């Protein structure tokens, strides 16, 4: 493999830096050459294979080792890209934003430091995956549920720091985060919230402590390396009942979203319910070629055939009820009666869905916090495995949902892609998560996907929609759309960046935030 160096660092200084890292972690935990394949973006969408190539990786086992590595990085001017489990594949995996950055792989820091069953929280290190924490809770017999995102191999901490979501009532992961320990870019160690009070007993119980709330600064940012984090866990409810509601027509989306908003805001719908498009549901069980070998948008006749064969709708709500049975019965009556106003709505519980691999059987586990990998089935839909998420945010309004849907669907069809998406319903907004599937082995299709993505970002911004998260290759594009008042927010972020990280060693370019050292012509 061709050796890639960090910008502005010569081979001798880089070799000295790696030697310093080896002194900290030991030879087996500094990776170069072929070992770096694990840190490549498996779904890279850009033509340049080296656009996000790491120069090396280093895997510390403790906070003290992280501090020592950060100090060495400052000494040699070597940039670091921290990753926890590195499984955020639709957004770049473990690969760094800037070619030549050294990946700081926190996978060995994988201890569940504490679980309080009574208070309902866990304190974890970055390398603890959802599978790990779930296994720990099961092994100990705690009556607690965790909240998991779709693939369970990701980091509990990493997902919360990236503003990820899950599907129980605790689905807002950063909202459920409480207390951090952070290594700053100069190597200093801080604890946030109540953790700053020596001898405190409430670090994982009260988020805000005293003074400015700092935790948000360390999410989707490059201002520090979080080495411990508290996460709230849901007490096991006395009852649980997952459900699915299907709707038969495209245009039903508007009415469905308008019905859903007051139910969600009023907490009749308790969890982070999702509305899934026909093809996203279908792709969990089938591939495109099982229905057609023709390119281009699927005709209505094919869509109807898929709906009939899989007994699914053009739109499909997956939700769940939690609590004592009488409470669930009451909530369900309200939910059913509300959506029954949509002509053709169909209602299902688990016992109604007997087809092998049915999505409700999979969602039934996810919505009760059992980690799985089922969601990855959709990458089989069109063949080639590549996918990235386009995720604009909108109000929970039917007209907005239809506007986003038609805007994105039409562009996807124009560029030769199928529309697969879900609307994840939050407290006051919804994420429209669109899965752009492409054949990662076909350069022409990748180029089309990249062109489409950049166009979608621009058109969404022009309509007032911003993405909440994105792939490495589009961080600058999306940061630029948050440009109110001559990019005042980015200027503030850069000011903080330069104050905390004057040598620019921590995650250059993360979320479009570049340190002065690499800013160059960038604004």
């Amino acid at each position, binding site marked *: 493999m061709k050796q890639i160096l960090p910008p502005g660092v010569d081979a001798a200084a880089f070799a000295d830096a790696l030697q310093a890292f080896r002194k900290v972690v*030991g030879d*087996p935990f500094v990776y170069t050459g072929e070992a770096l394949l*694990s840190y490549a973006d*498996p779904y890279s969408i850009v033509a340049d294979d080296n656009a996000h190539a790491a120069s090396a990786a280093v895997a510390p086992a403790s906070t003290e080792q992280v501090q020592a590595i950060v100090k060495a990085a400052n000494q040699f001017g070597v940039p670091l890209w921290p990753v926890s*489990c590195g*499984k955020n594949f639709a957004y770049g995996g473990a690969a760094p934003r800037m070619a030549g950055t050294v990946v700081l792989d926190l*996978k*060995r820091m994988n201890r569940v430091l504490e679980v309080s069953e009574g208070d309902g929280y866990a304190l974890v290190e970055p390398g603890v*995956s959802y*599978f790990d924490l779930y296994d720990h809770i099961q092994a100990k017999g705690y009556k607690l549920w965790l909240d998991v995102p779709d693939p369970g*191999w990701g980091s509990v901490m990493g997902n919360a720091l990236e503003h990820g979501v899950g599907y129980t009532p605790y689905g807002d992961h950063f909202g459920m985060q409480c207390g951090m320990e952070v290594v700053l870019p100069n190597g200093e160690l801080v604890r946030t919230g109540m953790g700053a009070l020596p001898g405190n007993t409430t670090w994982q119980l009260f988020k805000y402590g005293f003074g400015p709330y700092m935790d948000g600064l360390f999410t989707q940012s490059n201002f520090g390396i979080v080495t411990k984090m508290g996460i709230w866990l849901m007490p096991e409810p006395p009852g649980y009942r997952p459900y699915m509601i299907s709707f038969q027509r495209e245009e039903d989306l508007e009415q469905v979203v308008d019905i859903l908003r007051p139910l969600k805001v009023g907490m009749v719908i308790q969890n982070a319910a999702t509305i899934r498009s026909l093809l996203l549901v279908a792709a*969990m*069980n*089938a*591939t495109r*070629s*099982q229905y057609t070998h023709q390119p281009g948008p699927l005709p209505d006749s094919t869509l109807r055939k898929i709906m009939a064969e899989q007994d699914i709708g053009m739109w499909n709500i997956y939700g769940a009820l939690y609590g004592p049975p009488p409470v669930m019965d009451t909530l369900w009556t309200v939910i059913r009666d509300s959506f029954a106003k949509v002509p053709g709505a169909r209602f299902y519980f688990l016992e109604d869905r007997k087809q*092998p*691999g049915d999505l409700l059987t*999979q969602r039934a586990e996810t919505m009760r916090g059992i980690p*799985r*990998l*089922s969601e*990855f*089935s*959709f*990458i*089989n839909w069109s*063949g*080639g*495995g590549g996918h990235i998420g386009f995720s604009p945010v909108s109000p929970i309004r039917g007209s907005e949902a239809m506007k986003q849907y038609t805007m994105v669907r039409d562009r996807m069809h124009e560029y030769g892609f199928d529309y697969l998406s879900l609307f994840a319903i939050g407290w006051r907004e919804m994420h429209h998560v669109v899965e752009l599937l492409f054949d990662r*082995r076909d350069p022409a299709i990748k180029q089309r996907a990249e062109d489409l993505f950049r166009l979608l970002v621009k058109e969404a911004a022009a309509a007032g929609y911003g993405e909440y998260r994105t792939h490495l290759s589009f961080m600058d594009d999306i940061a630029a759309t948050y440009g109110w008042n001559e990019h005042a927010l980015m200027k503030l972020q850069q000011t903080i960046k330069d104050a905390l990280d004057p040598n620019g060693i921590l995650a250059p370019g993360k979320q479009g935030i570049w340190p002065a050292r690499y800013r160059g012509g960038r604004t």
Partner: protein
Amino acid sequence: MPGNAITRRQLLTSGVSATTVLALSRFAVAGGNLSAIASDIATFYDPRFPISRTLAGALPGASQLEAVEGDASRLLTHITADSIGRQRKRLQGVTTEAVPFCLEQMARRHHEVRFESQRLDRDLFAWSLEISPRPAAF
């Protein structure tokens, strides 16, 4: 006939393309380059695609075949630390892409991994994942 080479008659009656056969034969040769660890091999096919069973049965060392559709969640028990123990193990199959991708990514977390795959058509991949216990230093 699991474990045996695929016969000409099977291929002719399966409807599989010549390109697919050629790709699989290349893959089988590559699979032969993996370490001889035939004592612990698990072989998978996708029941949604009948040809996958025939082709999976022709992979080197295939004996009992296990069905799996697109979701690899159920197969994770094959790659836990307890399952691997001190032994090397090979998982292989002819399935859609999500299955080997998820298994490879999960296995890399805890084990040494050698992975090979060959695309057979739009949907199916022949693949082999050889897993060894990671050195104790980890």
